[in-house]
C-alpha cells in the first residue's frame, strides 16, 4: 500500500514546531509528517490554543453527519451487543482492521458514508500511483539522452490526457472492488451511511439506524487542508482530490507545499509538460526529509526540471482564474507577514497537507474534545476524553488521530487495536513504519533522520554513526542507466541498532522494507549483514550499507541457528 497524503509544512511554522516538539519526552516523531508531530504522545490542551485558528476543515455538504439528537439510552451500555466490533470508516485503516478482526473471530461491521476505500484508494495513493506510472514512462521516453544510452530510438512521445485520467480512475475502481469483495467474502457487514458515536458502545448510522458493539474503532480519515484565504474552485485552484482526476494539464501550475503530495504532483505535471512553481512556507524545499536526501533530491527532482520555487512564504490569498484573468497568488513572508510577491499562473494545487475528518462524529456524547480536529489517543489508540482519561471501548486509528498520516500506518494501527480487543496487548512501533514518495526516482525512509538521531544520541548518551552508499556502485542500477541516488543508514555503533534508513534512487520505495523489517524485529546490523542478497539486484544497495557499517566488536551477535538441509 502506498502512502496516504501526509502533511507538509504549511500549517506549522518553525517556532511552533520547536515549542511543541520539546513537550514530548521521546522524539518519536519523524519530521516528514507534519501534523503528526504535534499530535504525537498527546499532551495537554496548550496545543489546541496554539493552533486552533490555523485549521479549517472545508465543509462538504455531502459529508454531513447527523449528530445524534436522540440520546435516550446514553450512559447505559447494553448487555448484549449487535457486534463485537464496529469500525466507522471503510478506508484502508478500517479495511485492515476489519480483515484482522474476522481472522480473530470477531463479529464485525464497517460503516461507510462515502465510498469504500477512503482517501487512499479513491483520492490518494492509488490513483496518484497510476498517474506517476505514466509520468515515469513519459519522462523516460522524452529523455533522448537516456534512450540513446540504451541504443534505443523513440520518436516523439505524446500522451492522451483522457487516457491517462481513465487509467487512474480504472485503477481506483478496481482496487475499490477488490477491497469491497474481500470484506464481503469474509462476512464483514458493510453498512452504508454516515456513522456517529451516540454513547459508549453505541453507534448510529444512516438516518436513524442504531447499533451496539463491544468495541468501536473510529477511522474516518482526513480531507485536504486548505489554508485561509485560498478559494478552491475545483478548476484552476484545486486540491489533490481534483488533481487526481486530471481534468486538465495546465501550462503553468503553482503547487503550494513541497511535501509528498506536492512533490509527487510536480513529477506528474512536469512529465506531462507543465511548468511548476513551488510555494513553501519553510526556508527550504522538502522540509520533512533527511536534509542530505532533500538536498540531493532537489538537485535531481527540482533543479533540472521546469520548476522554480519560492521558500519562506505563505500563499496568503489565491484567486481562481476568472474574467480572462489568470490565477492570482499573493505571497507574504512567512515570518514578517509582509507582502512579498504576486504570482500569475494558470492553476494552483493546494498541497498543504490534510486535515482530520472528525466533525459531526458525535464525540461530544463521549466527552471527547478534538485537538485541531484530531482525536487524541494513547499509544494503544485508545481515545482520551476531555479530562485526560481513557474512553472505554473506543479507539481511533489513521489520519483521524494524526499520529502518522499514512495509509499503511492506519492499517497497522487497526490491526494493533484488534489484537488488543481480542485479548493480546500490542503497542505499534511507529518508528518501524516506512514512508515513501513516488517521484522518479523514488524517496523512501524509515526511522529517524540524521539530525533527529544525533539529538537523541546526545540526550541519551550514545554515539550515532552514518554510513552511505551510492546507486552508482550498484550493478543493477547501472544496467538500468539509473545510477543517480544514495542510501544512508543511521545506526548505533555500540550495539548495532538501526536508527533510520533513507533511500533516494531507483525503486527506493520497494527497497526500504528490508530496513523497516529489521527495525520492527529488532534485528541488529551485525546479524543482518550476514544475510545474502541476490546478485545483481538493487537490494545490494542495502547490503552495501549493512556491510559498510562499523559496529564495535563487543556488540553481541544473536547466534543464528542454521538448519542444514541434507
Amino acid at each position, binding site marked *: 500500500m502506498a502512502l496516504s497524503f501526509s502533511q507538509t509544512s504549511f500549517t506549522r511554522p518553525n517556532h511552533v514546531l520547536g515549542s511543541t516538539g520539546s513537550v514530548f519526552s521521546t522524539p518519536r516523531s519523524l519530521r516528514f509528517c507534519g501534523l503528526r508531530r504535534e499530535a504525537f504522545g498527546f499532551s495537554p490542551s496548550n496545543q489546541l490554543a496554539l493552533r486552533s485558528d490555523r485549521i479549517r476543515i472545508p465543509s462538504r455538504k455531502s459529508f454531513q453527519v447527523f449528530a445524534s439528537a436522540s440520546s435516550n439510552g446514553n450512559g447505559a451500555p447494553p448487555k448484549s451487543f449487535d457486534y463485537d466490533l464496529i469500525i466507522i470508516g471503510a478506508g484502508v485503516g478500517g479495511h485492515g482492521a476489519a480483515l484482522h478482526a474476522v481472522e480473530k473471530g470477531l463479529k464485525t461491521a464497517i460503516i461507510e458514508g462515502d465510498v469504500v476505500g477512503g482517501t487512499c484508494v479513491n483520492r490518494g495513493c492509488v490513483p496518484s500511483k497510476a498517474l506517476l506510472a505514466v509520468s515515469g514512462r513519459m519522462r523516460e521516453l522524452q529523455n533522448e539522452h537516456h534512450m540513446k544510452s540504451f541504443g534505443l530510438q523513440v520518436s516523439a512521445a505524446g500522451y492522451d490526457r483522457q487516457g491517462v485520467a481513465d487509467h487512474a480512475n480504472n485503477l481506483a475502481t478496481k482496487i475499490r472492488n477488490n477491497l469491497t469483495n474481500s470484506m464481503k467474502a469474509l462476512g464483514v457487514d458493510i453498512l452504508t451511511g454516515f456513522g456517529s458515536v451516540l454513547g459508549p458502545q453505541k453507534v448510529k448510522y444512516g438516518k436513524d439506524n442504531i447499533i451496539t458493539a463491544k468495541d468501536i474503532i473510529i477511522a474516518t480519515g482526513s480531507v485536504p487542508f486548505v489554508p485561509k484565504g485560498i478559494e478552491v474552485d475545483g478548476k484552476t485552484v484545486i486540491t489533490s482530490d481534483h488533481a487526481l482526476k486530471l481534468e486538465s494539464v495546465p501550462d503553468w501550475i503553482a503547487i503550494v507545499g513541497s511535501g509528498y503530495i506536492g512533490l509527487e504532483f510536480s513529477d506528474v505535471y512536469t512529465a506531462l509538460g507543465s511548468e511548476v512553481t513551488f510555494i513553501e512556507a519553510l526556508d527550504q524545499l522538502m522540509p520533512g526529509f533527511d536534509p542530505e536526501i532533500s538536498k540531493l533530491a532537489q538537485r535531481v527532482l527540482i533543479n533540472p526540471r521546469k520548476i522554480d520555487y519560492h521558500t519562506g512564504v505563505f500563499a496568503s490569498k489565491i484567486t481562481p482564474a476568472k474574467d480572462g484573468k489568470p490565477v492570482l497568488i499573493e505571497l507574504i513572508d512567512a515570518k514578517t507577514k509582509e507582502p512579498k510577491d504576486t504570482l*500569475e499562473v494558470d492553476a494552483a494545487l493546494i498541497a498543504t497537507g490534510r486535515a482530520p475528518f472528525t466533525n459531526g462524529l458525535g464525540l461530544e456524547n463521549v466527552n471527547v474534545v478534538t485537538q485541531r480536529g484530531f482525536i487524541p489517543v494513547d499509544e494503544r489508540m485508545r481515545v482520551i476524553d476531555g479530562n485526560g482519561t481513557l474512553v472505554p471501548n473506543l479507539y481511533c486509528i489513521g489520519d483521524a488521530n494524526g499520529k502518522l498520516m499514512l495509509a499503511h500506518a492506519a492499517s497497522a494501527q487497526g490491526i494493533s487495536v484488534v489484537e488488543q480487543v481480542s485479548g493480546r496487548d500490542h503497542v505499534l512501533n511507529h518508528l518501524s513504519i516506512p514512508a515513501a514518495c513516488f517521484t522518479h526516482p523514488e524517496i523512501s525512509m524509515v526511522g529517524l533522520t540524521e539530525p533527529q538521531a544525533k539529538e537523541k544520541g546526545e540526550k541519551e548518551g550514545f554515539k550515532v554513526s552514518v554510513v552511505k552508499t551510492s546507486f552508482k556502485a550498484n550493478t543493477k542500477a547501472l544496467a538500468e542507466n539509473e545510477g543517480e541516488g544514495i542510501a544512508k543508514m543511521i545506526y548505533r555503533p555500540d550495539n548495532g541498532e538501526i536508527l533510520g534508513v533513507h533511500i533516494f534512487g531507483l525503486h527506493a520505495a520497494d527497497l526500504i522494507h528490508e530496513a523497516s523489517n529489521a527495525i520492527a524485529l529488532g534485528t541488529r546490523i551485525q546479524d543482518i549483514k550476514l544475510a545474502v542478497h541476490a546478485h545483481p539486484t538493487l537490494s545490494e544497495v542495502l547490503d552495501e550499507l549493512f556491510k559498510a557499517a562499523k559496529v564495535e566488536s563487543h556488540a553481541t551477535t544473536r547466534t543464528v541457528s542454521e538448519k542444514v538441509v541434507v
Partner: protein
Amino acid sequence: MAVSSSSFLSTASLTNSKSNISFASSVSPSLRSVVFRSTTPATSHRRSMTVRSKIREIFMPALSSTMTEGKIVSWIKTEGEKLAKGESVVVVESDKADMDVETFYDGYLAAIVVGEGETAPVGAAIGLLAETEAEIEEAKSKAASKSSSSVAEAVVPSPPPVTSSPASAIAQPAPVTAVSDGPRKTVATPYAKKLAKQHKVDIESVAGTGPFGRITASDVETAAGIAPSKSSIAPPPPPPPPVTAKATTTNLPPLLPDSSIVPFTAMQSAVSKNMIESLSVPTFRVGYPVNTDALDALYEKVKPKGVTMTALLAKAAGMALAQHPVVNASCKDGKSFSYNSSINIAVAVAINGGLITPVLQDADKLDLYLLSQKWKELVGKARSKQLQPHEYNSGTFTLSNLGMFGVDRFDAILPPGQGAIMAVGASKPTVVADKDGFFSVKNTMLVNVTADHRIVYGADLAAFLQTFAKIIENPDSLTL
C-alpha cells in the same frame, strides 16, 4: 565573442561529493599580470582594478561549466582568522556539487561579503583577504563601502549597515536599460527563467508572447537566438573541434630553447574555443565604401554631448539591421534559423590584452545619447571585469572597428551564433570621381561584412550595406 567564465570545469561528477578547488584573487596592479599568468590564470580577468593595498578579493569561482552563480554553504573560516595557502576557506554549492574552496595566499580573512546561505554570481567578490592583521580594518571598511557603493545609485546619503544582504546588491545591478515600461512587472515561467539563466539572457529584456503577456521558454529561446526546441533537457554539446587541432599538435615543431609557455587565461581559452567553433560556419565577405563627410560633420556636432563614434556606428548598423532582419538572424543548429526579436550590437573591445564584446542592447531603438551613455558604462564595467554575462553574451550582430589604428580594411571572423559581423576601417580622404566625371576628395571608409552564408546571401548583404551606407551618408536620421 562571448567569453564564458568556465575556467574550473567540473571535476565532481558524483553528487554530494566534495572536492577541493582553489580560487584566485587579485593582487596589486603592478604585480598582477605576472602573477596571474604564472599562478592564477584561471580568473585573472576578474580582478578588480581598484585594489591598491594588499587586500585581495575572494571571488565566487566557477565550479562547473554551466555554473552562473553559487551559493555559500558555509564559511569554514571566520572573519579575522588567519589563513594559510591551501587551506579551505569556504564551501560553495554549485549546480552540481558542494565544494571546498581553498586559498592561494597566506593572510587573514578580513571580511565576509556574501554570508552563508546567500548567492552570488560567478566572479563576484564574496570575501576579502588581508595580507597582514593591520589591513583587516581597512578591508572591512572596503567591504562596507563596497556594499554601500552599489546602493549609492539609489542616492542614499548614509550607507546602510553591511549586514543588509550585500549579496543581493551585487547580484542585481541596477537595470540600466529599463525602458519606461510602466509599473508592469515581468512574468516569466519557471522554465523561461531557467533558460534565460542558461543562455545568459536578461529576462527583463525579453518580450513575452505567452498567455497574459508572460515570457515563455520559446520567447527566451528566440531572444537567445536559438531555435525553439521541444526536447530541451540539456543543450546539445558544442560540435567537436575539427581534426586540424589534432594535426597541429602532432606536427608542432619543438619549442625553441628558453621559450616560455604561457597557459591560456580563461578569456583566452574562451576566445580560442569560439574561434575554433567558428570554423564550422561557412562564411563569405562583402565590402562597401562609405562616404563619411556628413557623418564626420555630425560627429563634431554631437561629440561635446558625449556621443562616441562607436555609438554612431552601432546606431547606424542597428537601424540598417531593422530593415534587413535576416542579417540580424542566427543559425544555431544548421537546420533552421531564427529572427532575433531585438537588435543587440556587440562591439569588440580590446582590454588588457584580452578581447571582450560588450553588447548595446536594442541599438535600433535607443537614442544616440542613451547609447553613448550605455557604452561608456559597459566599457567601464568591462575594464573592471564587472560585466554580467548577458552584457557580453547577448549580441545578435557584431561591430569591430580598427579605424582608429589607421587600418583601412580588414576581415573579421564571424562569432558563432551570430549572422554577421562588420569590420570597419579608417575613414580616409580619398579621391573619388562622381557620375559626371568630376574628381573630388571625400572621406571614405571601407566596411567589410562577414556573414553566415547558410542564412545570409550575397544580395542580402549587399542590400544591407547599401542601407547602411545611405544612413551614414545622410546621418540626420541617427539623431532622431
